[in-house]
């Protein structure tokens, strides 16, 4: 009881009552309990099953020497340029065999992680670029790597389908072996390999289609 309240109670004249504080602490406790109940109701149940986890990975066979990491080097100073690209043999999300790079024409490998916001920005750009005929002379292959069922935008298959990706896809294994074999150290990661299997160009990060056009123009 406050001092001002104590002063009341004597005298016959009714006096204005001093307002007490709102019961904030009990309200806060009640809110926390209510939040817990609502959370259980809204998100409870058996929990979301991260389905299709296994199909988002694929066994990858690597033939050849692993490329060194790009490690921030500019494409001009990339130690992997002119090296023989390792051949990756694996499957897509449906289990169909996929082998990259192609021996018939240049191959642009795009290593992408479903959770990566830069990959999420790059893939639609590439889809539009391919639809506009930008990749007519090159085989574009997406390598789904670093897949993580706990990470956002799961599954990579649903993501690529949603973005309208129609080019071949190679599903990397859970250890990211394909990415490691190509020296991937960031996402998205590009590697252009000519038809003889030699690395022509690598880059890490979002790339504009103008840059891709310029790089492809250097191919013989």
């Amino acid at each position, binding site marked *: 009881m406050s001092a*001002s309240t104590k002063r009341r109670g004597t005298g016959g004249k009714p006096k204005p009552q001093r*307002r007490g504080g709102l019961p904030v602490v009990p309200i806060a406790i009640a809110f926390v309990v209510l939040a817990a109940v609502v*959370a259980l109701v809204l998100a409870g149940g058996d929990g979301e099953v991260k389905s299709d986890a296994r199909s988002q990975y694929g066994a990858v066979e690597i033939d050849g020497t692993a490329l060194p990491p790009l490690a921030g080097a500019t494409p001009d100073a990339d130690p992997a340029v002119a090296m023989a690209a390792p051949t990756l043999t694996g499957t897509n999300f449906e289990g169909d065999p996929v082998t990259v790079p192609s021996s018939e024409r240049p191959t642009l490998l795009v290593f992408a992680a479903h959770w990566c916001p830069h990959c999420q920005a790059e893939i639609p750009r590439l889809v539009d670029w391919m639809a506009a005929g930008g990749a007519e002379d090159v085989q574009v292959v997406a390598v789904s790597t670093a897949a993580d069922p706990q990470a956002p935008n799961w599954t990579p298959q649903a993501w690529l389908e949603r973005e309208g990706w129609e080019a071949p896809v190679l599903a990397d294994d859970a250890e990211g072996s394909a990415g490691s074999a190509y020296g991937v150290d960031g996402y*998205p990661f590009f590697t252009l390999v000519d038809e003889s299997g030699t690395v022509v160009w690598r880059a890490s990060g979002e790339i504009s289609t103008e840059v891709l056009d310029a790089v492809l123009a250097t191919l013989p």
Partner: protein
Amino acid sequence: MSVDVMSTFFALLALGANVVVLTAIATSVVPALRPVRGRLADGVRGSTLVLAAVVTGVATAGSLYYSEVAGFPPCRLCWIQRGFMYPLFPALTLTAWRGAWPLRPWARLAALLGAAVSVWHLLVERFPGLEGAIACDAANPCSLVWVKEFGFITIPYMAFAAFTLVAVLLSVRPDSPTDARACDASDEPSTSKARTA
């Protein structure tokens, strides 16, 4: 308990914190709401340190839950926010218990700095290019959105809600009415008298 349930729970707490903070701001800015401000302040006066300690404790526990139970690795900006939040929990708890340290202004400053980092983290989530890179660090980029509840509540949003709530709680004067002018016409001008009685 699934990560989804816990995330929904934390998101609801964050919304509750938003309501408190927005109410505090509204009752400070709008003169007609000042009596409400006084009553709210009276309701928590004397408990603000305990409440702030509880908020930082829940935020710390939530942060550790995400990294150690859910398996979401904290990014660089997460660590900076942890640097502001984690020390507040024992400091506020000890201060609430012993009541000896003049911690309040420093804790409020730490909470506001933490909130500023949270805002930057939210911007990085929304505009990944702000991270100063065009590629995702293969390890753990700050732009990675691990949790998104109700379409907008992410982990740094939760941190922002906690930091701002702590700052508001620590802005309530512990030993006197928030503002004598907050009393409306029907109140006795008794608050200052009571204090001196």
